[in-house]
């Protein structure tokens, strides 16, 4: 499934990354808990979540961080290298509940978006800075961030 490698010369300031849609549901949160080792019940038990001052279980900040990393690393390709990353959890996101064993109910879809804000050469590295973020179903960016990627150069 490997696609054509992206080169530094192929992109410009303002170039947008292909949007990565994500649906956080209870199933994904439980899988994430198991795979990442974050077993805080705030993310899988509504009753406990309410004692923590939220309306119900909330999406792990680190899961949204992993979506953003997927956005960046998937886009930069095998020969790119992400040297810096940052994200902030500004708004809470509530996962969809399940309709069946593996299908979520209708509801919100999140969009991970990114755009090039700077393009430069740093020593031998051909770099781009990105503005990235996870947008909720209402179009609010609940998880803004940034990244710096080294891309291969044709030069």
């Amino acid at each position, binding site marked *: 499934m490997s696609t054509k490698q992206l080169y530094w010369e192929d992109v410009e300031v303002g170039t947008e990354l292909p949007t990565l849609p994500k649906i956080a549901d209870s199933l*994904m949160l439980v899988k994430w808990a198991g795979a*990442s080792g974050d077993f805080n019940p705030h993310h899988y038990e509504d009753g406990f979540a309410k004692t923590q001052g939220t309306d119900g279980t909330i999406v792990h900040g*680190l*899961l949204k961080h992993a979506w953003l990393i997927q956005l960046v690393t998937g886009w930069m390709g095998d020969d790119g290298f992400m040297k810096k990353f940052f994200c*902030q959890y500004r708004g809470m996101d509530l996962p969809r509940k399940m309709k069946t064993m593996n299908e979520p109910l209708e509801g919100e879809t999140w969009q991970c978006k990114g755009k090039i804000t700077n393009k430069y050469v740093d020593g031998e590295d051909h770099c781009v800075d990105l503005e990235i973020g996870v947008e909720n179903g209402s179009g609010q960016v609940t998880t803004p961030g940034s990244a710096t990627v080294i891309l291969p150069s044709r030069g």
Partner: protein
Amino acid sequence: MASEELKVPEALLQYIGKVDPPTVKEVEKGSIRRYAEAVGDPNPLYSDEEHARKSRYGGIIAPPGFFGWPKSGMPAAEGLIGLMTGLIEAGYAGILDGGMAYECYLPVRAGDTLVASPMVKDVTAKAGKTNMMITRFETTYLNQNGDLVARSFHTLIGRQL
């Protein structure tokens, strides 16, 4: 808001600059695959042996942000447990993750053994509708060759409930 009026409790100040014992973490192929699957990330560098072998990495790597699982004990984020207990005891029991940043230097490879050394960088008070303590950690990750793989910068927030 008069944030100068809210002070960091003495009990929390003691954590600043504290270095937790390092955690030894193993980066196993299976745990990389499960992590990528949980995220929904189909990148073949994380799961397809043949693809990864032909890539410039020569083998399976982990997605940035995944540093494997501790060799023993619970897989909590490094260094958090002591400070979290401190926050709860000081009345800031509504713990929320604030954010994460990385500086990455080398890829994390399947088969690596990493040593994660966390330190509490600072604790600051923020007054508001909900009073908060904002704590920042820095963790360095070295691999089995002693090379610096990455640094992480983690913000954890305790809210007064």
